């Protein structure tokens, strides 16, 4: 099924009257957020609460010789000062990362990146805590840092991870996928081979709310209550139990309102552990909120892949094979949040949306003296890097063949009858129908007209570029047979209770950071059980209130937890049918479900509503044999496969030849995320991701000087798009449902972040064609574009 929506621009229909099911519906979470009544972590105020501040390393690589805290301890308002040595005594100086590496909570032996946690102060207020940091005297012996990732494995490179027994170099891991020999054979017989070095620089998610926590340990009850900025409260609870040795049933993790996550709030950061220790040590609730600079220099970054892409094709444009070699910078600790068996995330989808004969990737990951992280910023577990690689290299091929980039893509798409399609790297794409999506994007853009306009402008010396990208994502991790994080299977629970009066509560293991779960999940349940969304309360983000599950990241909420919500509602509906059959004195088979009620087949006047059934389930009178009272159910959903959304993006840029400033004039995004639950929310997710794309393609980069000083340590240095850098987005959609998801939905939260950077870069390179430019690396700032125009394009790192 393919449907076409006219791109909406400024229609103001009031439209929230739909009683049940899918469609545009205003958000249930908005009234509190609009009134300033949201409750974010920093809004939590508890009686007697103290404030924690962290002392961080000014050096990228140094030995910690001594830490003198005496002056800080004597400062006014200070309640505790804790160092790595203190934590060592408690067995808490190191903690596991999400990739089975270890990371220092507070440094004991060495600091390994600028901004690493060295000590913390707990004081009566924020200001006193910060003041006392100035009084801690740390003596460092500065060591040579490893900053240039290409030199990390040089024989004389300084050793970073001497904490790991037997470690003699900065090697982190090797990984490969595909078939090297088959790919070599395909390349050997190809008419055309194009090779291009492509850098995806380090960027940062920089959510508007930084990371933080409030820890409240009750020594009498032995219970820890932790409000924190986490996208995965249940996984965090289990890890705290393992790290701190606290019994899991005595830990309550609460993720209140979260001010954006984008992957930045998946890992456990040392600050969270420090807050817990601070509360245990002082016996008081302790709040830690990092400042913007701390967020940018120490928390989960994204990307940092140096890629060599190669593509082989016939002279007439049939793509035969894709090959890549990647050098990955993982920073000082491997803090990547990815399923255990996927150290490079889902980079294996670098074969894109094309039916090819062979593919191979070899990757080497290394340690450097930079902040840890790796998977963050809405990347769908490294699919962002994979899609950038393939969509950039396909454009390079189009240039080599002198073929239109849209035509080249159309010629090589996987065809609808090939789904489910197994790629040469082993991914099973569930469904797709690519050509209509591509054609719709071209129609909305007016592609042929744009090319004509470009030709005219080129003749006048004006620089206009048109860039295309077409992506397929793999989202909804994942089947527990091969996906887990630190041994925790990536399934998600869901519980639904219908109260006697027919109002319902649904409890989720996932956690919104702005995606609108309180609305979308109410709609999913409403669609299945016929209770209006307004009568369904969505409870999430509190481990004492919700079933276990792995949380929200990698666009997995709708594919995994959304499926759980639909199935738990069906389970409740099945029970409701048994009760309805008794109420109507017919067999179960004689009932039809008409949204919201069961009717007797052939006699629709004889019917009971879900609300009447709910009352009966809790009320007086006998229930059918073997049916318990109440109307509720709980399930844990283990997805059988990932879902594979796709999309076609077209970007139009103008470049000022005098200043090399790139202006994104238009951006057309046509997405296919299967069944659409709330189109308004989907459009919002797309818009946000497109803006990320403009940021990464043109502005954002976390860079370092040769000493390892982070040069993107404030929002004055790390540039994020404002309303002036982005156009009014144009969107459209097609619908290709997922065959294995109960309602056919696929994830969409990261599609635009994944798909937009190559479209923008392809547009810039297209604009620069008169200068003979075939490739230029992000971020395409005026100075870097200027250099490219003069044949001096250099990689950013």
């Amino acid at each position, binding site marked *: 099924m393919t449907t076409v929506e006219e791109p909406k621009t400024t229609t103001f229909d009031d439209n929230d009257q739909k009683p049940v099911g899918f469609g545009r519906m205003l*958000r249930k979470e908005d009234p509190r957020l609009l009134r300033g009544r949201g409750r974010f972590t920093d809004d939590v105020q508890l009686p007697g609460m103290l404030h924690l501040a962290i002392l961080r390393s000014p050096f990228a690589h140094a030995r910690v010789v001594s830490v003198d805290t005496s002056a800080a301890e004597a400062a006014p308002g200070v309640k505790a000062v804790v160092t790595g040595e203190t934590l060592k005594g408690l067995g808490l100086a190191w903690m596991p990362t999400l990739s089975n590496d270890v990371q220092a909570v507070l440094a004991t032996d060495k600091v390994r990146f600028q901004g690493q946690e060295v000590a913390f102060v707990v004081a009566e207020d924020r200001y006193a805590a910060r003041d006392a940091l100035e009084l801690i005297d740390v003596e460092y012996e500065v060591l040579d840092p490893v900053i240039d990732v290409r030199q990390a494995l040089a024989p004389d490179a300084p050793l970073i991870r001497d904490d790991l027994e037997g470690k003699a170099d900065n090697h982190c891991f090797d990984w490969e996928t595909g078939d090297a020999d088959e790919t070599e054979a395909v390349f050997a017989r190809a008419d055309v081979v194009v090779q291009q070095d492509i850098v995806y620089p380090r960027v940062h998610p920089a959510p508007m709310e930084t990371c933080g926590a409030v820890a409240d340990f009750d020594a009498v009850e032995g219970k820890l209550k932790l409000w924190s900025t986490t996208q995965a409260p249940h996984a965090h609870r289990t890890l705290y139990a393992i790290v701190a040795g606290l019994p899991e049933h005595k830990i309550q993790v609460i993720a209140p309102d979260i001010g*954006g996550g984008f992957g930045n709030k998946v890992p456990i950061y040392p600050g969270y552990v420090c807050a817990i220790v601070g509360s245990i040590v002082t016996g008081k609730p302790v709040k830690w909120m990092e400042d913007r600079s701390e967020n940018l220099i120490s928390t989960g970054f994204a990307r940092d892949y140096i890629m060599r892409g190669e593509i082989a094709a016939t002279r007439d444009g049939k793509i035969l094979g894709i090959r890549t070699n990647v050098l990955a910078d993982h920073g000082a600790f491997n803090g990547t949040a990815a399923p255990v068996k996927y150290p490079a995330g889902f980079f294996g989808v670098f074969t894109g949306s094309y039916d090819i004969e062979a593919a191979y990737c070899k990757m080497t990951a290394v340690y450097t003296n930079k902040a840890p992280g790796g998977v963050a910023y809405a990347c769908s577990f490294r699919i962002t890097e994979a899609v950038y690689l393939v969509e950039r290299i396909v454009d390079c091929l189009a240039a080599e063949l002198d073929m239109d980039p849209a035509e080249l893509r159309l010629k090589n798409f996987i065809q609808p009858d090939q789904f489910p399609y197994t790629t040469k790297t082993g991914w099973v794409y569930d469904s797709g129908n690519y050509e209509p999506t591509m054609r719709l994007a071209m129609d909305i853009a007016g592609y042929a007209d744009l090319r004509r306009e470009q030709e005219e402008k080129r003749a006048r010396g004006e620089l206009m570029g048109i860039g295309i990208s077409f992506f397929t994502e793999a989202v909804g991790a994942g089947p527990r047979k091969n996906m887990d994080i630190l041994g925790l299977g990536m399934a998600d629970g869901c519980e639904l209770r219908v109260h006697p009066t027919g109002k319902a509560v649904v409890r989720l293991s996932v956690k919104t950071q702005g995606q609108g779960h309180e609305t979308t999940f109410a709609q999913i349940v409403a669609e299945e059980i016929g209770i209006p969304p307004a009568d369904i309360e969505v409870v999430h983000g509190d481990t004492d209130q919700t079933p276990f599950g792995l949380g929200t990241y990698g666009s997995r909420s709708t594919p995994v937890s959304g499926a759980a919500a639909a199935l738990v509602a069906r389970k409740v509906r099945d029970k409701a049918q048994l009760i309805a059959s008794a109420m109507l004195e017919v067999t179960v088979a004689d009932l039809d479900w008409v949204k919201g009620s069961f009717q007797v087949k052939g006699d629709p006047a004889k019917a009971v509503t879900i609300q009447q059934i709910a009352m009966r389930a809790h009320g007086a009178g006998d229930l059918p044999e073997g049916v318990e009272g109440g109307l509720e159910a709980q399930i844990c959903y283990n997805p059988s496969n990932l879902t594979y959304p796709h999309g076609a993006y077209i970007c139009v840029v103008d470049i000022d030849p005098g200043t090399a400033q790139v202006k994104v004039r238009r951006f057309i995004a046509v997405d296919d995320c299967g069944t659409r639950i709330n189109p308004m929310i989907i459009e919002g997710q797309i818009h946000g991701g497109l803006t990320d794309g403009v940021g990464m393609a043109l502005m954002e980069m976390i860079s370092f000087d040769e000493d390892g000083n982070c040069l993107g340590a404030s929002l004055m240095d790390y540039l994020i798009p404002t309303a002036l850098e982005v156009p009014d987005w144009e969107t459209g959609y097609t619908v290709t449902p997922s065959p294995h998801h109960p309602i056919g939905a696929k994830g969409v939260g990261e599609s635009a972040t994944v798909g937009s950077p190559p479209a923008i870069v392809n547009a810039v390179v297209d604009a620069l064609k008169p200068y003979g430019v075939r490739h230029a690396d992000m971020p395409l700032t005026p100075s870097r574009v200027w250099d490219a125009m003069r044949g001096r394009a250099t990689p950013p790192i």
Partner: protein
Amino acid sequence: MQVTMTVNDVEVTAEIEGRLLLVHFLRDTLSLTGTHWGCDTSNCGTCVVWLDGEPVKSCTVLAAMADGHAVRTVEGLARGAELDPIQEGFMQCHGLQCGFCTPGMMMTCRALLDKNPDPTDAEIREAISGQICRCTGYSTIVRSVRWASVHEAANK
């Protein structure tokens, strides 16, 4: 030192440290947590409130500087149960997602409409260009302000 100011039409007096930032005074002292804090450097604008009717970034204003002045925050936008049209516009047009930048955005946009009841899209974008939203991509914020503008004009 002692400061006295009106916050959302209510007079408040408090003993504070001279270096206390207005954003912390509002959040920690008065428990008006609708105003958020995001960057320290006046770049993100999530802390925007009004000082005598003018939008200011409260992370770079001392509470002492507000002594004797009138402050308005997001909590002072609605009139009881009735949302301000700008709040209604943000809801109708999906002008918010995580809601963290939203209070600051709405304070700036309300001030814009007070001065310019029928702004163009370009004027709206210019007005919010000192603020960052990481979720919405800004188009829906522009639509939200247009919604408020159109509905206010219709209700006059």
